[in-house]
């Protein structure tokens, strides 16, 4: 049974028709104790079928240690979207529901390598000299969440210092507890700075600067 309906398949084909470059979708999985590993793998394989430019690579989280380390993957299912370079664009948990649009956005974004961000944002990012980690907690039924995920992924593509994860909160309850996620989207920047809700670009950039100021003070 395919996961994607024929109607969605046609739309995805169109979306991926003019990809600016090749894309590797790298999935980490294991055979047991992982709620949506199998479906995530299947989803990525189905998408790879729809574009000549997209390839699926499947790795085992337990045995393929080298790859796990190289891509900095720490939980599964994980999907890394890699183009001409690895910008640090990741999905933890299955990108289903509204997050399916985030996944396609990430593929197109990474293929093009050109984020659509304001000059002000790009100026701030140019000055970022230390690592920044975005974790955007979502649920698949949240219509606002994709905005936050897409924005975080844009920032990751724009700056070599920024990496950005979508984290599907229902699949990682221990992280939901650790980061006190009781509403989504909730964005965690470098562990200590939080954004509630789908904040617009200037607000997210301000919070990024706040996170950096905190780490300097520490």
């Amino acid at each position, binding site marked *: 049974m395919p*996961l*994607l*309906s024929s109607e*969605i398949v046609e*739309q*995805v084909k169109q*979306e991926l028709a003019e990809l600016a470059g090749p894309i590797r979708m790298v999935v980490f999985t294991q055979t047991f104790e992982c709620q*949506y590993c199998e*479906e995530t793998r299947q*989803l990525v394989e189905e998408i790879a079928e729809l574009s000549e430019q997209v390839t699926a690579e499947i790795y085992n989280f337990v045995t393929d240690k080298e790859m796990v380390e190289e891509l900095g993957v720490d939980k599964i299912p994980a999907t890394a979207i890699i183009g001409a370079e690895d910008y640090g664009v990741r999905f933890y948990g*299955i990108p*289903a*529901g*509204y997050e*399916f*649009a985030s996944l*396609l*956005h990430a593929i197109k974004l990474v293929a093009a390598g050109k984020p*659509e*961000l*304001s000059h002000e944002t790009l100026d701030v990012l140019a000055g970022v000299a230390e690592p920044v980690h975005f974790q955007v907690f979502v*649920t*698949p*039924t*949240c*219509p*606002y*969440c*994709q*905005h936050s995920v897409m924005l975080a992924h844009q920032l990751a593509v724009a700056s070599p210092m920024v990496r950005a994860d979508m984290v599907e*909160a*229902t699949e990682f309850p221990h992280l*939901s507890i650790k980061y*006190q*996620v*009781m*509403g*989504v989207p*909730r964005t965690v920047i470098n562990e200590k700075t*939080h954004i*509630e*809700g*789908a904040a*617009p*670009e*200037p607000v997210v950039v301000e919070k990024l600067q706040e996170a950096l100021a905190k780490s300097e003070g520490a």
Partner: protein
Amino acid sequence: MLDFKLSQPGQDKPSAAQGGEQVIDLLIIGGGPAGLTAAIYAGRAALKAVLLVGSMAGGQIANTDRVENYPGFPEGISGAELAQRFQSQAEHFVTKLANDFVTEVDFSSSPFTVKTHLETYRGRAVIVATGAFPRRLGVPGEKEFFGRGVSTCATCDGFFYRDRRVVVVGGGDSAIDEGLFLTKFASEVVVVHRRDQLRATKSLQERAFANSKMQFVWDTVVEEILGGETVTGVRVRNVKTDETSTIETDGVFVYVGLVPGTKLFEGQLEMNEQGYIVTDAHQCTSVPGVFAAGDVQSPDFRQVVIAAGAGAKAVIEADRYLAEATGPHA
């Protein structure tokens, strides 16, 4: 059950009208039913139009569990899917659909200027369709606990309240609809309403009263949201007896009506006391060439079908205005 939605705001279509300083025919601000319908009609009228969607196409319906009163869908349709269908149809017709947030407008002279965080647009006519947003309670604790127990989106956050008790504040359609949705997760849904009966439509009321997880606290308002790291309860007051008490809860979902999204237009368009844009029967605002449609100008009905109708009217009127202002477009 897994599903995969492709509704994605801001799919920019390559076109001549990429903003910049170029003057286009029609700028539509807002991507709910009114704005999306306006985009469809603008395309059909062969107007060069840009639709500025904001964060999410669909507006309030994208966040609605089910829409059962939009004609053409005899079985009802999920709000998200209806929003997606509106958007797909708009994409066929509109010159550009952008995910930008509008930060500033200048309606003092034509062509009108609309700035977003990415670009500056200039349009010979504008349709304001920025809709309405959930009203906040405005009580202590609400802002502090937002995202840590206070929510306005049951479909987003219901999962976090599995087997817990939640409070829903309000008695209208949204409150009851979302309250019923929350019964899928929560052990108890306590509806706190300031009146002694619900305002929600009868069919929703019947479902609510038949659901054993739903409880009702009448004639009561929330005065404070209590908690430590997260919400632990609400302090409430009975408006008839003036007695106060505390209801223990892990989550508070607020559905106490809406406020119009008109802050951007203060001082530029005439508004009524509640902040809604004043229009005539033809969707004209106090500024010739600027039109308004949907919940932003009409708090009385709040229906998808009415917002869509108003969006269509606004374009027909804008097309007339443009033809008169500049002669028929060749």
